[in-house]
């Protein structure tokens, strides 16, 4: 069937029930975002101990101005002049105005500035690695399910090992082997500090050169999940009647597998929300080992310096990014699966 008519039909379908499904999902993600902000607001307030004094203890040696102190007190609610509800509303007001507080470990610059410097690196690295690992893992999963009983089945225990190993352990190994022993790639950082940032080939190739090893680590560690998931669903799908009919018609095997795979991929896409959390968490740790200047790296320094405002800001940004990624996966799902469009 020509793709154009297919798209046209999907577009007309999308107007009806799909809008309902999607708007429900958007509603859920909005509620989740509100809940996440609420959780992050209450954590410092229900934890034992006084975060302000903890910060001050870690800031020994630096000059603490009165301004810093009041900023910290407002941040953690030790400022008792305002009630809890007032603080909560205040917090929301700040967030909606893009004010995430002040980063104490980076010379009192706004948290948003610090995050803005790190976010592109993480988005580029984790985004690319996730897409590659999803495509690669899904294709391998199809292959493993198709060639059941062949040597490819031994791939499963091997990938299990890579999945069970912590991301950062694989990162250790990758650096030790490919960067130090073989010297193929740089061992850390995102670019040569001497480079002049410009849109020329030297700069871009330098960035790619630094990104390959961390990206490879993330792909190797996360592909296993997609492989196993796709294989398991694919094996069930290959028993469906339409696959049998397709084969009975004498269609080429490749085409039959394609029919089955198109349907088997749906649970992988709907399982995205679980997987993306793992991948992002693992990627943050990978960044730390590679000293890659993304969110994971500054998150570690925020922890070490007790820079709580930055820590909360990073959490919120990561959560929003994960929610957006989930929403995108839902869009794709509605687009791919006609059953969601026939509902209601």
């Amino acid at each position, binding site marked *: 069937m020509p793709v154009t008519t297919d798209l046209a039909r999907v577009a007309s379908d999308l107007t009806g029930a799909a809008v309902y499904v999607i708007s429900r999902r958007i509603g859920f993600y909005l509620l989740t975002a509100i809940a996440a902000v609420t*959780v992050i607001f209450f954590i410092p307030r229900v934890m*034992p101990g006084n975060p302000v004094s903890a910060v001050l203890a870690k800031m020994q040696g630096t000059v603490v101005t009165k301004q810093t102190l009041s900023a910290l007190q407002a941040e953690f609610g030790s400022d008792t002049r305002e009630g809890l509800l007032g603080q909560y509303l205040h917090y929301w007001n700040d967030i909606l105005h893009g004010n995430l507080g002040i980063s104490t470990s980076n010379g009192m610059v706004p948290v948003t500035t610090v995050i803005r410097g790190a976010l592109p690196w993480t988005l580029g690295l984790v985004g690319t690695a996730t897409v590659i690992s999803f495509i690669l893992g899904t294709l391998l999963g199809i292959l493993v399910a*198709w060639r*059941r*009983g062949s040597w490819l089945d031994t791939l499963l225990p091997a990938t299990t090992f890579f999945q069970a190993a912590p991301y*950062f352990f694989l990162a250790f190994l990758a650096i030790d082997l490919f960067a130090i022993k073989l010297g193929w790639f740089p061992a850390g950082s995102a670019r040569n500090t001497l480079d002049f940032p410009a849109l020329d080939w030297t700069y871009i190739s330098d960035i790619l050169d630094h990104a390959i090893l961390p990206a490879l680590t993330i792909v190797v560690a996360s592909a296993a999940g997609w492989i196993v998931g796709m294989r398991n669903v694919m094996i069930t799908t290959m028993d469906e009647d339409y696959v049998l009919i397709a084969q009975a018609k004498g269609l080429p095997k490749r085409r039959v597998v394609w029919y089955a795979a198109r349907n088997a991929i749906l649970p992988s896409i709907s399982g995205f929300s679980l997987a993306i959390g793992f991948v992002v968490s693992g990627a*943050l740790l990978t960044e730390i080992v590679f000293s890659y200047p993304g969110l994971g790296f500054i998150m570690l320094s925020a922890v070490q310096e007790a820079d709580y405002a930055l820590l909360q800001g990073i959490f919120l940004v990561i959560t929003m990014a994960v929610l957006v990624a989930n929403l995108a996966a839902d869009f794709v799902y509605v687009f791919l699966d006609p059953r969601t469009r026939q509902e209601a």
Partner: protein
Amino acid sequence: MAIGSTDLDDAQAADLLQLVPEAPAGRRLRLPRSPKVLIGLAGLTGFLVLAVIGPWIAPYNPAETFSTTASFPQPPSAAHLLGTTQQQQDVFSQLLAGGRSTILVAFVAGLVATVLSVVVGVTAGYAGGLGDDLLSMLANFFLVLPALPLLIVIFGFLPPSQGSDDVLIGLIIAITGWAFGARILRAQTLSLRTRDYVESARVIGERGWRIISFEILPNLIPILASSFLFTVLYGVGTYTALAFLGLVNPNHVSWGGMLFYAQVAGAEQSGYWWLFIPPGLAVALLGTSLALLNFGIDEFINPRLRAAGLSRRRARRAGAARPPRRFVLGVTPVLRSVPPAGDDGRPRGAPIRTAGRCSRSGGCAWTTAPARARCTRSSTPTWCCTAERCSAWPGRAAAASPPSPTPSPGCSGPPG
């Protein structure tokens, strides 16, 4: 398996999980004896023993400093089998002693999370209505929330004095790890709720808690075991990550803490492999054992996966007279033990269609090896379908009905 948060998947998950509890009572939880399961079981037992005796058999006190003059980690030697750390402590002793904390935290997390997931998941699935909506939403919320960043924030605020309490750490990890189990338990409870035996218990007038604990829970055991192992696996990874970040007291010996010190010493840049390979490998092997065991349970839950992993040689050993060179597309044989001849009037070797083995559309699956051998022997592609088809989608009715002993016509042409 549908894990995501679209409403659709519940039906799919329930459908997949439909395959679980049809086995006769005696067969429950008898795992397929594949090498995967055996290796996984052996590995896990080994690690559990290590967790108990590790700190006792360690040759040295893991915190003891052996030299005040050396400023670099010393490579492995006869005195120190795996070398020393930057602080000149014995790596091998730390490795043996560090397992206890890692495994304790992971199992506490697994236990607590499993209890939470049963409470939330089964209640949601059984109650239905508004309660179900709210509880499902709670589970979905925890599912999409990125767990590690949340834990980093929580542990960032935790006073250091409490950072070395294993049980507390396990509890906190469990809070972020129960949602996945709750989701699949809910899906399965939804499908169990409408089964005949549950309906009849309700008609008899049994109370809700009794139906849940005596009729529904026993049938959830395979899924429960699977989600427990999954959460323990998650606990191992998460605890190691938190310790690696230095968020739990680093002087509390654990594998993650060893990796933390390896990072501090710049082990990967300087080639001190004995600092990061032993603990990393230990975590990876523990995780692999858990995952392999989980594979076994998956294969128990879904027999198709079991047959799918069969090589030709093993298929023959399992009783197939002439295993096919390659399994045909569209049909996955389900191997079970050959039934005793004629105990229910079924001719020996006739294809039997057991309820619960059906795919969504009632695709072909046959159960006895001789039957399959007979089918593959014929020259042209043949379809071995039983006369009656369990066609119901979502398949509840068919799966709930008792196994039909109706002999099938055996090998026939394509249906229709």
